[in-house]
C-alpha cells in the first residue's frame, strides 16, 4: 500500500484533512481550538472525568463499530481513517435526539458541564442497545463509569438512560459513513509536522523496521497513558510509532488450550474474549478504568507499559500467560512475569515490540479468581490487585500461582505464598500458613492509595476470600454472600 502523509478522517460525517499540526495535538484541542466545536469539554485532560467523551466509528467488516473515546488524551493522528462524532452531531435532524430529550425530561443536568460527555456515552449505549430493546440499571451504571457528575448524584442520569429507550426512536444510518471511510487515503501513515513525526505502519514488518530505525521513538498503542505525557508533563515523546493499524496485532484466536490475543486488541475486546473462559473476571473488567479508556487502551499496551499497578498482569501471571516479543529478526516467547525486571524496567529489547499474549484456557481442577481493591468502585487505580490460581487434584494443590499488583515495584508472583500452598490440601491450615508467608513476600509502599500495612492486609485477606470461595473444607452455604458489590437484591 502507498504511504499517506496527511491525516484524514470524518468528523460528523464531513471529511477532515489535517497537515502541519503537531502530531501530539489532541482531538479535544483540535475540536475546540481549531474548529470552534466547543460542545466537547475539558474537565481533567487525563481521561478521568469524561467531559470530553466523543464517539468514534471504526471499520469492522462492512459496518461501522462505534465506541466511546476520551478526546482529551487522543492524539489527532490516531483518528486517521476513522469517523468521529461529537455532541453537535446529535441534532443533525433538527430536533433533540431521544438521549437529549430524556436528559431534559429527567432533569439530568444541573451545571451542564459534564452533560455533553454523558450524552455521548448514553448515545453510544443507545446505538448499541436499541436493537435489544433497552438496557438495565446495572449495565447503564457501568456504561457511565467514565463520566463524572458533581451535581446530580447520578440518579436522574440513570433514569434518562432508561427513559431514552421509551421515546420514539431515532436511528442514524452509518452505512454512508462506513463507505466513505473506504475512500479515505489508506496505507501506512507517515505524518510529519515541524519537529513532530507520527508513523502508523500498516504491517508488522514495517512496524518492526521503523522501531529498529528509530530507537528513540515511542511506541503508541491506545495512548491512555502516553497522552498524559503531553497534556500533563510536556515531555517530548520523540517520533511516535502507532501500533494499532497493524493487522497482525489485532489477531485474536481461540485454540483448544490457549487464547492468543494480539497486542493491539482493545481491552474491551480482550476482556470480552477472556470473560467467556473466565467469567469470574467480569467484575475486574467492569472496574478496569472506564469504558472509553478500555476502548482506547489495549491488552498489549497495559502489559508493555509495565506499571506495577496495571490490572491485567496479576491474573495473567497467575494463569501462566506468556507474551510474544518480536523484532525484525523474529519472535521469542517468554513468561509474562519474566518481562518485568524492576520498576518500569523490562527484559524487552529496545527494538522489540510486544506482539501478543498467550493465555492458557481453563482446565479441570483449576480454581481461579482475581480482585482489585480501590477507594472507589468505578474507574479507580488499584491499591492492590490479587490473582489466585490453584490446580487442585483430590483436594490437594498441585500447582499454585499467586500474583499481585500494587505490592512491589512490578506486578509479581508471591513465591513464599505459593510454596506454602504447593502440595498441601486447600484447607484452613494451609490458608493460615500461606497468609503468613505472604507477609514476607512483599514490602509494599505507602502512598495516597493505601498504606503499606493496608496493602499487606489486603493481600492476605484477598487470599482468604479466595479460600472462602474455593477451600476444600468450606461449606458453601455457610455464608449468605461474600461480595458487597454483588449482594443479591433480595437481601435488601
Amino acid at each position, binding site marked *: 500500500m502507498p504511504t499517506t502523509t496527511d491525516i484524514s478522517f470524518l468528523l460528523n460525517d464531513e471529511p477532515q484533512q489535517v497537515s502541519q499540526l503537531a502530531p501530539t495535538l489532541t482531538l479535544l484541542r483540535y475540536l475546540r481550538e481549531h474548529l470552534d466545536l466547543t460542545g466537547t469539554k475539558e474537565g481533567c485532560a487525563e481521561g478521568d472525568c469524561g467531559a470530553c467523551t466523543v464517539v468514534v466509528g471504526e471499520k469492522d467488516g462492512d459496518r461501522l463499530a462505534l465506541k466511546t473515546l476520551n478526546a482529551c488524551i487522543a492524539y489527532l493522528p490516531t483518528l486517521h481513517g476513522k469517523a468521529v462524532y461529537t455532541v453537535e452531531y446529535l441534532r443533525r435532524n433538527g430536533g433533540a435526539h431521544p438521549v437529549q430529550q430524556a436528559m431534559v425530561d429527567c432533569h439530568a443536568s*444541573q451545571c451542564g458541564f459534564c*452533560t455533553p460527555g454523558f450524552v455521548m456515552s448514553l448515545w453510544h449505549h443507545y446505538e448499541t442497545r436499541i436493537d435489544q430493546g433497552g438496557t438495565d440499571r446495572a449495565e447503564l451504571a457501568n456504561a457511565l463509569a467514565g463520566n463524572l457528575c458533581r451535581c446530580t448524584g447520578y440518579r436522574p442520569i440513570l433514569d434518562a438512560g432508561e427513559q431514552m429507550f421509551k421515546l420514539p426512536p431515532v436511528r442514524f444510518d452509518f452505512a454512508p459513513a462506513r463507505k466513505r471511510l473506504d475512500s479515505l487515503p489508506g496505507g501506512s501513515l507517515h505524518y510529519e509536522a515541524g519537529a513532530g513525526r507520527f508513523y502508523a505502519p500498516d504491517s508488522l514488518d514495517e512496524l518492526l523496521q521503523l522501531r529498529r530505525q528509530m530507537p528513540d521513538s515511542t511506541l503508541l498503542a491506545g495512548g491512555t497513558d502516553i497522552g498524559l505525557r503531553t497534556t500533563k508533563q510536556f515531555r517530548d515523546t520523540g517520533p511516535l510509532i502507532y501500533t494499532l493499524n497493524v493487522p497482525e496485532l489485532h489477531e485474536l484466536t481461540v485454540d483448544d488450550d490457549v487464547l492468543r490475543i494480539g497486542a493491539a486488541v482493545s481491552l474491551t475486546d480482550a476482556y470480552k474474549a477472556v470473560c467467556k473462559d473466565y467469567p469470574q473476571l467480569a467484575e475486574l473488567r467492569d472496574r478496569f478504568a472506564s469504558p472509553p479508556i478500555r476502548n482506547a487502551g489495549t491488552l498489549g499496551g497495559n502489559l508493555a507499559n509495565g506499571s506495577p499497578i496495571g490490572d491485567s498482569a496479576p491474573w495473567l501471571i497467575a494463569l501462566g500467560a506468556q507474551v510474544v516479543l518480536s523484532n525484525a529478526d523474529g519472535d521469542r516467547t517468554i513468561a509474562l512475569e519474566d518481562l518485568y525486571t524492576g520498576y518500569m524496567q523490562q527484559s524487552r529489547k529496545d527494538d522489540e515490540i510486544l506482539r501478543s499474549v498467550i493465555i492458557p484456557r481453563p482446565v479441570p481442577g483449576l480454581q481461579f479468581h482475581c480482585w482489585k481493591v480501590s477507594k472507589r468502585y*468505578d474507574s479507580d487505580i488499584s491499591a492492590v490487585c490479587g490473582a489466585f490460581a490453584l490446580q487442585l487434584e483430590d483436594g490437594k494443590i498441585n500447582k499454585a500461582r499467586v500474583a499481585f499488583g500494587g505490592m512491589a515495584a512490578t506486578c509479581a508472583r508471591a513465591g513464599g505464598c505459593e510454596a506454602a500452598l504447593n502440595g498441601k490440601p486447600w484447607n484452613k491450615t494451609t490458608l493460615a500458613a500461606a497468609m503468613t508467608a505472604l507477609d514476607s513476600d512483599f514490602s509494599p509502599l505507602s502512598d495516597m492509595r493505601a498504606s503499606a500495612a493496608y496493602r499487606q492486609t489486603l493481600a492476605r485477606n484477598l487470599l482468604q476470600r479466595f479460600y472462602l470461595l474455593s477451600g476444600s473444607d468450606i461449606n458453601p452455604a455457610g455464608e*449468605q454472600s461474600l461480595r458487597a458489590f454483588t449482594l443479591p437484591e433480595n437481601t435488601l
Partner: protein
Amino acid sequence: MSAARQPLPHESAHLHVAGEATYIDDIPESRGTLHCAIGMSTEAHALIQTLDLDAVRAAPGVVLVITAEDIPGVNDCGPILHDDPILADGEVHYVGQPVFAVIAESREQARAAARLGKISYKPLPALLTPRQAHAAGAYVIDPMSLTRGEPDKALSAAPHSLSGQFDVGGQEQFYLEGQICYIIPKEDDGFHVYSSTQHPTEMQHVVCHALNLSQHQVTVEMRRMGGGFGGKESQSAIFCGIAAVAAAKTGRPVKLRPDRDDDMLITGKRHGFAYDYEVGFDDEGRILAAKIDMIANAGFSADLSGPVATRAICHFDNAYYLENVAINAYCARTNTQSNTAFRGFGGPQGALAIELIIEDIARTLGKDPVDVRAVNYYGKQDRNVTPYGQVVKDNLLHELLPELLDSSDYSARRKAIADFNAGNSVLKKGLAVTPVKFGISFNVKHFNQAGALVHVYTDGSVLVNHGGAEMGQGLNTKVAQVVAHELGISLSRVRASAADTSKVANTSATAASTGSDLNGKAAEDAARQIRVRLAELAAELYDCKAADVVFADDKVTAGSTQIPFSELVATAYTHRVQLWSDGFYKTPGLSWDKDTLTGNPFYYFAYGAAVSEVVLDTLTGEWKLLRADLLHDAGNSINPAIDIGQIEGGYIQGMGWLTTEELCWNDKGLLTTHAPSTYKIPASNDCPPVFNTSLFKGENPADTVLKSKAVGEPPLLLGFSVYFALRDAVANARADNSHALYVAPASCEAMLNAIAK
C-alpha cells in the same frame, strides 16, 4: 396555571444536552488573545532566595513574565483580611502557591514555560496538620468561644459521660469546569472580565485593587459556571488578579485557565476539622452538657475561615437542644492551600461532631440512635433556644422524622439487618438515620441584600437580570419562574441574562444557600412594580379597580375585558408607562454580635432527614450503599424537580466527603491527590439502587419568596447518614460491637483499621 411551583426543566437544559451552553472557555477568543499559566511554589514554607526566570522568558511564544513586583496596585486577594498575596512576595506558604505567571501566545506555550522557572528557597519550618498548628498556637484569626449555661458543672453532675477525639478531612470542590478568567481590555482604561465566579462583585474589587482602578472601569460578566460549590466564591480572585495584571501590562486580552492539577494544587478546599469533645448525658441519652474544641484547618491564610468557623459554631447543635455547652473554635494556620467555602460552609463540620456524639451515646446506653436523637430534638415551646440565643420557631423534625421512619420501613429493616449480621461473618450491614437543621442567611447581616432588573419589552417578552450567579443550582430558572408568576405569564416569555456588575451593582456572593431567597425576592419586587403600573393602566382603560386586575395565563383581565398580556404591554408603551423596573430586597429581622457570637443570624431554618443502609466487606473495607431514603423540607417549592436535584446531589456529595474523597498531603506538604485519577468523587455505581427522595409538604412560615426555602446547602448534611451507617457496620463487625471509627473519610482502609482496633 402559574409558572411557579412547577417541575420545569432547568432554563439551560436544552443547551446543556446539545453542547450549546456557553462556558467561558467556549466564548470565541478576541483577536490577539494571550494565555497565561502559573509558576507554583514547590516548598511548603520557605523564603524565596533567588527567582531566575530567564529560561521562562526565553521559551517559545512567551510575551511576558510577571511576579509580585509587577502588580501596580495591591498584591492581595483576601476577601476579608489582607493576608492573601496574588503572587508570593519573598515568602511561600504552601506547595502550589502562585509565584509567577507566564503570558504566551498559546496556552500550551505558557504552561510549558511555567515549568522552566528556577527558584531557590531557604526552607522554613512548616505546619502541615491542624493539630500541629493548634499545638503551636498558629492561627489565622483569633480563637472564638461560645458558652451557654454551666457546662463544667453539668458535666461533673451527669450520670454518664464520654470524651474523645475525632478528625474529619477536607473536600475538594471538584467543579467540573475548572477555574477560568478571561479579561479583555476596553477603551478608556476599562476592562471586561469574564470569570467563572460565584462573586462577580468581589472579582470586580480584586481587579480594581490590583490595578488601582475605580470600580466603574471594570465590568464582570458571568453567564454560568460549570459548578461552583463554594470553590469559586473567593478563590476565583487569584486568577482574576493575575489575568488582570497580565491584560493591563500587555494591553491584550488574556485568558487564564489553569490545568485541573494546578487548580487543585492552588485553590483551597473544604476545611478539615479536628475535634476534642466531652459530653455528659442521662439514662435516656439526653445531653446535659457538651464541651468541644473544633480545630479547623484554615490553610495558610484567613480567606473565609472566620465565617466558616462561625457557622460551625452555629451548627454544632444541629437539631438538638444543648442546655449547657462550651464551644471553642480555632482556625489553625497550616502550610497548605487556604481553605475556603464549600457547600455548607462549616455547618457540616459543626453538625457532624454532635451526630457522632449522639451515635456514641446510643451505643453506650444500648439504645437505638433514633430514640436518643428524639429526646434531644429542639422542643416546640421549651428547650428551643440555640446556644447563640436564637429561638427555633419552625422546628419540623417532630413531624418529619416519624414520616421518614415510616416511609423507609426503618424498624423492620433495623431488625432485618441484625438478622443478616448474625448470619454473616464477612459482610456486615449498617443503618443510620440523621436529621438536619440548617440556618439560612449570611451570618454577616449586610450581605443579606440583593437587586434585580426586570425589563418587559413591547412584544410581551421579559428579561430578568439579578445579582445571583448560576452555577447549576437552577437559580435563573427559579427567578424566571418567580417573575413569570408575578406577571401571570408563561415561563417561555421570561429569559434570565448573565450576572453582570454593570447591571446590578454591589452584589453579594451567591452563597450560603441564599441565591433564590435574595434574588428571587428582588426580582419579584421589580416585576411587581411593573405589574402595578400595568394594572393601573388597565384599570383606567377598562374601568375597574387596579386591585381587581388579574394577571394569569398570559392574559390580563380587567373588569369585563380580557386581553393578551402582550397587548396590554404594547398599549402601555404608547401610554408612556415605564415597562422596566429595578427591585431590591433585604432580609428582615437579622442580628449578629460577632464579639459575643449571639443574635438572630438566621431568617429561618431548613430541615430534612435521611436513612441510609450499607453493606461492608470486612476483608477489604469495600462497601456499597444499598438504599437511601431522603425527606427534605424545601418549604413550598418553587420548582420541585430542581429542589429534588439539589437534595440528591447534596446527599451524594456529602457522602463523597465522608467516604471516598480523601485528600492526602505528603511529608513535604505536597497534595498528592490533585487530579481525578487520585481524588475520587462518587461515580455512577455509587448511586444507590434504591433511592427514594421526597419533599416534606409545607410552606415556610417566614415571608420568603413564594414561601419556599433555601435548598442549596442543607441536603449535603443528609450524606452524614451514609457515614454513620458505615460506622454502624464497622461496630457490628467488632467483637465488642463498640464504635471505633473516629476518622472521616471512612476510606476502606480506615474502616478495616477501625474493625481491627
